[in-house]
């Protein structure tokens, strides 16, 4: 029932055994390994989130002590940000799809690519080992001097983040070189899929910003280990300086998280509207522009921190420079549907969902950028809701869309579309029920990172907790039918969505080990559906490959075994 059924050799079954996976240099297999790893991180972070929400169901102690709660939300954040969101789209879908979309046989440095994966695993392991060493609370921001006043666990978390940073840097570096040097003939910059543009922009941020979190956590490490007095006020250091260091990375990191989502959504909107993405050049270049501008606004996290007023004003002003192109992008995505031919398969549902949730995240971001309003809203649940609307409503929703989009290509199997639609609805409903009440209670004054709260916020907290359960059910349903599809799913066709990028038009499902038999030659843009009419003469699903790759050799007579599946 596996891939031998289609009689083809592909990247999943050309070589067998656990070693062929652990030592693979194939970007597709590395992508799949990342998928497994980040899914586990998401599961762990998600369970912690559910526990945190249950604790907040009522004021006072519900299921855990204050210390347990403080550690739970901290670990939830560290796992979700460093081990899940940052690698999610670039390392999973970027690794799987980017080289194929470029018409390349692999990334520029495959060995480095595998090394990045293991560095990521090691970093995550070091960070997790902090749990054994001692108490880790205080949130993912590690603000000094609190972070240096708690136990030695902080040494491990910072070391883990430092190591995971290297993984992120090396992945970004690899992708930048790949995009520059390995494009197929005819694939000019303005024919690139927007997914590539966004991953490219993301990689720039990864390369430029991540080293700074490296030096920041290194200094924090030294501060804790040797009391070097750079950040610790008791020794004459400046805690606000730490916040500058931290946000110089962590604000651009927000764009590491959201830019890939822009790319996925662009691809989905184009493909499922069967229409050119409106304002292609603007969407492409603004991603790069946002990547750079993202470095100039970090101080908007520090309006009440004690930084000088003049820098608050400057940071606030530049914040709007980013808001405007982002807003125009949303309009472009909506406009893509105009006079298109819109189909509502499950990946597209996520794209549409994204437009809704991300817009709310964006508008509330503008609100938080206003100097006077931020003073009231800073460090309240309003901020919590805002960044969940951007991170989860943006990145995670887009990642789910991308996963549903590329799943048939990755595994060669189709998932149950009805279940997928039910799950998408549950995720949408659950997400909004969880986080929308948090805007209101935040504006009412409910501070974040509170174990206990005053009774006037109880109703909102209850709604939020119930929402988290719905959201959890939706996410588990997704995990369920995707896993089922691997074993029992129907065989996926070559191009079930009628997409025009090379992974759909020039290679088999699942792709061949070397991606293509011959280097493809690109003759049109990624969304020039009107130049590819001939592909759609027989309806929605495209069943023929346009170019090289369909001549993949048939599988030799070895009996089919299952170890090559995920």
């Amino acid at each position, binding site marked *: 029932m596996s891939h031998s059924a289609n009689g083809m050799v592909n990247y999943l079954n050309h070589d067998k055994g656990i070693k062929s996976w652990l030592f693979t240099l194939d970007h597709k297999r590395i992508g799949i390994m990342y998928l497994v790893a980040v899914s586990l991180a998401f599961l762990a972070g998600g369970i912690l989130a559910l526990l945190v929400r249950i604790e907040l169901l009522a004021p006072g102690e519900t299921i855990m002590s204050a210390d347990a709660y403080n550690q739970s939300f901290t670990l939830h954040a560290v796992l979700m940000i460093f081990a899940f969101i940052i690698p999610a789209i670039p390392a999973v879908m970027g690794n799987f799809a980017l080289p194929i979309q470029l018409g390349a046989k692999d990334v520029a440095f495959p060995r480095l690519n595998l090394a990045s994966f293991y560095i990521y695993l090691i970093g995550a392991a070091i960070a997790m080992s902090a749990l054994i060493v001692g108490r880790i609370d205080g949130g993912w921001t590690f603000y000094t001097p609190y972070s240096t006043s708690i136990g030695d666990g902080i040494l491990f978390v910072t070391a883990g983040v430092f190591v995971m940073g290297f993984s992120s840097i090396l992945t970004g570096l690899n992708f930048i070189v790949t995009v520059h*040097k390995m494009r197929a003939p005819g694939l000019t910059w303005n024919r690139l899929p927007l997914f590539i543009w966004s991953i490219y922009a993301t990689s720039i941020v990864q390369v430029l910003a991540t080293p700074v979190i490296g030096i920041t956590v290194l200094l924090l490490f030294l501060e804790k280990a040797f009391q070097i007095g750079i950040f610790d006020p008791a020794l004459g250091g400046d805690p606000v300086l730490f916040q500058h260091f931290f946000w110089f990375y962590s604000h651009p990191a927000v764009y590491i998280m959201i830019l890939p989502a822009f790319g996925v959504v662009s691809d989905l909107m184009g493909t499922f509207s069967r229409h050119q993405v409106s304002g292609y050049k603007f969407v492409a270049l603004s991603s790069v522009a946002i990547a750079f501008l993202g470095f100039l606004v970090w101080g908007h996290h520090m309006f009440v921190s004690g930084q000088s007023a003049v820098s608050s004003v400057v940071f606030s002003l530049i914040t709007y420079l980013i808001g405007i192109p982002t807003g125009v992008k949303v309009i472009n995505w909506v406009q893509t549907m105009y006079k298109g031919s819109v189909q509502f398969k499950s990946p597209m549902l996520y794209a549409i969902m994204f437009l809704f949730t991300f817009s709310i995240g964006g508008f509330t971001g503008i609100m938080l950028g206003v100097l006077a309003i931020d003073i009231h809203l800073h460090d309240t649940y309003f901020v919590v809701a805002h960044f969940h609307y951007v991170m989860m409503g943006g990145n995670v929703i887009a990642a789910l869309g991308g996963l549903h989009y590329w799943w048939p290509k990755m595994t060669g199997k189709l998932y149950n579309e009805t279940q997928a639609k039910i799950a998408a609805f549950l995720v949408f409903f659950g997400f909004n029920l969880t986080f929308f009440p948090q805007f209101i209670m935040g504006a009412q004054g409910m501070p974040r990172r509170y174990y206990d709260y005053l009774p006037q916020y109880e109703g909102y907290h209850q709604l939020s907790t119930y929402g988290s359960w719905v959201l959890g059910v939706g996410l588990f349903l997704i995990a369920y039918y995707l896993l089922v599809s691997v074993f029992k799913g129907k065989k996926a066709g070559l191009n079930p969505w009628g997409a025009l990028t090379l992974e759909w038009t020039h290679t088999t499902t699942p792709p061949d080990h070397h991606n293509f038999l011959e280097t493809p030659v690109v003759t049109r843009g990624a969304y020039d559906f009107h130049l590819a009419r001939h592909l759609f003469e027989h309806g929605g699903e495209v069943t023929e490959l346009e170019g090289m790759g369909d001549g993949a050799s048939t599988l030799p007579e070895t009996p089919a075994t299952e170890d090559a599946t995920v």
Partner: protein
Amino acid sequence: MSTPHSDQPAHVKHYFVSSEQQFDAAKMGMWLFLVTEILLFSGMFVAYTIYRSWHPETWAALSTALDWKLGGLNTIVLLGSSFTVALGIHHIQKGNKKGLIINLILTFLFAGVFLVVKYFEYSAKIEHGLLPGAAFDPHGISYGFDYATYNVPYGPQFFSIYFVMTGIHGFHVLVGMGLFAWITRKAIRGDFSAEYYTPVENCGLYWHLVDIIWIFLFPLLYLI
């Protein structure tokens, strides 16, 4: 795994179209890596700038605690090693393998000298309690000079920055020595030729960057 095109030399990986593409990609990757190094060090330069602008009197007082003669010697040593790396690349570009090997060994030795000098500098500081942060405790008299006069406010910060900056830099020198040992071995084995010397070129780029960082550290810490 690799299925090189029959018309390509052995060093070209199967996923590259040509040796040229492979060389360009490797070099671009290296430059990107260098940028990450620059940004890594930038954090320390920021800390330096901020604390210097807050406490200029401390900086003026304590830069005299560092020995400019040793720092200057190390500057010349590192410049020399950069020079030998450049010479090595020049030789291999012309196909002179022996010239490459000699220059690589020289570079390795220069790096060693740098670290030895650094060792003497550090031990003098440690002996007199010129240590980072909470450990800062200048004491002792040497050559009739009382080190206790270095006990000025924010002295701990100066030495924190000094040790972290030179420490990270020294770590890079150590890594560089490892890299040069590795490529010297490859060079002796005969891996490089006028057609293929990408690792030499990239190690060289790394080494020049280490040199450049020192070019800034020297005046900032020792002189002004």
